[in-house]
């Protein structure tokens, strides 16, 4: 029985409970994510991080949230009030919606009902996630526009340009997954990985592109140039305060968790245990699969923090150049390669043909890269041979400054 059939038998009350659980998972994991991020980042910087509210400071983000909600809610005079209020609601609601199709457990027993912790299973589940996150961009654009202020407008435009650009690369990186799984349904992609091998192994380039574009998509460091706290005040949410700001904050973190969950589902075998540990999936009546899922999601979340702790922020033009001129062409070429290999496989081509195709490809890449290196070397102009300057020159970097004793 497929997951879709299993979920189709859910009575209404089970669906309601599952929706509640999914919502709770999102909110609680946001609270934990904020805490984890602050602690891990602190560790990377030889600090301790929040440790005063609750054990290990675990309740810090909860108390921050309460404090934020109790603050004065300011709507600027120049703001378009209706849109100003709607924008954070759109941004938050869309993040939560993308969680509906993420399969979080295998078959489990929920209040005596045999089901899986997945709200719904659409035949085009992954497309639905992409669509919903795209609508989430409206939240950003409208927030920036309706604030009636310069910084939010510029930040909103930048954020949305960034998200849309990287969504293209993200979508393209998923095409290879669809081709291998033969489906766009999240649960079927998971089960196809379970039958064969995790997509991260066979489709590693896709995985790399997805991981890079998911960081760009969520406006996180090192791609957080639209919000750049130190430079641009905060981007599209500059004018927001109190609960509306909290909603944007929530949306940002739910978004991170959502793209991490999608990465888990598409590339790391979803809720299934790593190969060799399959017996653990039966533990706790199947609920142990949820722990595997959380572990994998946290792996990605740790990556987010690691990137933030390590890399400096990109410049806007570098960022756009990287997205459009590197990620998208590379994904397109990779899709062509995957498609060709897939057709060769399905047509029953012998191994020699496949190997010849792969070898030819490697040779082609090497030839192109060496050609580009040569042209780069040619274009590097030699330093002009000028006369030595007749003024004292400052010491150059990497040259030990020589003390010149000028006599008496």
């Amino acid at each position, binding site marked *: 029985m497929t997951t879709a059939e299993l979920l189709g038998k859910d009575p209404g009350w089970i669906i309601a409970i599952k929706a509640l659980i999914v919502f709770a998972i999102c909110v609680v994991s946001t609270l934990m994510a904020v805490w984890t991020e602050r602690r891990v980042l602190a560790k*990377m910087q030889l600090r301790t991080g929040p440790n005063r509210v609750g054990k290990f400071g675990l309740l810090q983000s909860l108390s921050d949230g309460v404090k934020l909600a109790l603050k004065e809610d300011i709507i600027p005079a120049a703001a378009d009030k209706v849109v100003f209020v709607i924008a954070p609601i759109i941004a938050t609601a869309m993040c939560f919606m993308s969680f509906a199709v993420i399969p979080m457990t295998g078959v489990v027993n929920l209040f005596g009902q045999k089901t899986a912790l997945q709200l719904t299973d659409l035949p085009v589940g992954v497309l639905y996630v992409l669509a919903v996150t795209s609508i989430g961009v409206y939240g950003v654009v409208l927030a920036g526009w309706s604030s009636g202020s310069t910084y939010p407008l510029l930040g909103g435009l930048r954020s949305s340009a960034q998200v849309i650009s990287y969504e293209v690369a993200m979508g393209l990186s998923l095409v290879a997954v669809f081709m291998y799984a033969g489906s766009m349904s999240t649960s079927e992609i998971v089960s196809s990985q379970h039958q064969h091998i995790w997509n991260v192994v066979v489709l590693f380039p896709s995985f790399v592109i997805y991981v890079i574009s998911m960081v760009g998509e969520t406006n996180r460091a090192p791609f957080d140039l639209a919000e750049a706290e130190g430079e641009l005040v905060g981007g599209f949410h500059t004018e927001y305060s109190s609960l509306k700001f909290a909603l944007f904050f929530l949306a940002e973190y739910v978004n991170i968790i959502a793209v991490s969950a999608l990465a888990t589902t598409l590339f790391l075998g979803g809720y299934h245990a790593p190969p060799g540990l399959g017996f653990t999936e039966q533990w706790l009546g199947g609920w142990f699969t949820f722990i595997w899922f959380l572990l994998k999601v946290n792996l990605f979340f740790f990556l987010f923090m690691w990137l933030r702790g390590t890399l400096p922020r990109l410049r806007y033009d570098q960022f756009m150049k990287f997205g459009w001129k590197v990620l998208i062409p590379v994904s397109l070429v990779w899709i062509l390669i995957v498609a060709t290999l897939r057709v060769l496989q399905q047509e029953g081509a012998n191994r020699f043909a496949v190997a010849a195709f792969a070898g030819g490809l490697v040779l082609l890449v090497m030839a192109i890269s060496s050609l580009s290196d040569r042209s780069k070397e040619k274009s590097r102009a030699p330093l002009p041979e000028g006369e030595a300057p007749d003024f004292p020159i400052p010491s150059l970097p990497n040259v030990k400054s020589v003390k010149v004793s000028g006599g008496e």
Partner: protein
Amino acid sequence: MTDFIEPQKKFNVENSELDINSVPFEEVKQPGPGSLLEQAKGFWVTFSTMFKKNQTVQYPDVKAPTAPRFHGRHQLNRHPDGLEKCIGCELCAWACPADAIYVEGGNNTPENQVSPGERHGAVYQINYLRCIFCGLCVEACPTRALTMTNEYELADDKREKLIFEKDDLLAPLRQGMLAPPHPMYPGMTDTNYYNGDVKESHPSQNLNGQGQK
């Protein structure tokens, strides 16, 4: 990347007649972006840092000791019999670059002997809103009456509270000390006091019958 390019041999540093323009002018190779592995090194730096001991001091709970000669709150010291060392000379106030110290001297009388000798500090104030903890006042003090403690928790919520009076600054009474005013040690002059000949109070100094054990 840390090593330097050595200056060329033909440049002789000992030659003092040298013209600066004879310094060889050489193109310096700037380090490029490096290989992919080289660039990934940063990830290892942040990752390994996670397992290092962190540098945070849990301040209100754990108070790290200061350096032994840390310039903290001032203290007005006493002679071993309890008489104050301050003679109200105002040298500290004159030395203060921030004008944080205010002193009014007073005469010692047989009924009101606060310090050995003729004079004592009647009013002594240090304004910690102005004090820069430079320690020039301590250097100026001729009787070693004014020194500094290691106490650094001086924040408060009222400006008035940060003007410390003599009572706030005086050193506590230790073993063998009597609270002034009381007569000087019998047979001792102020010079004896300064020379450290007085080791503790004499029973005859205790006119008020304070704290006898």
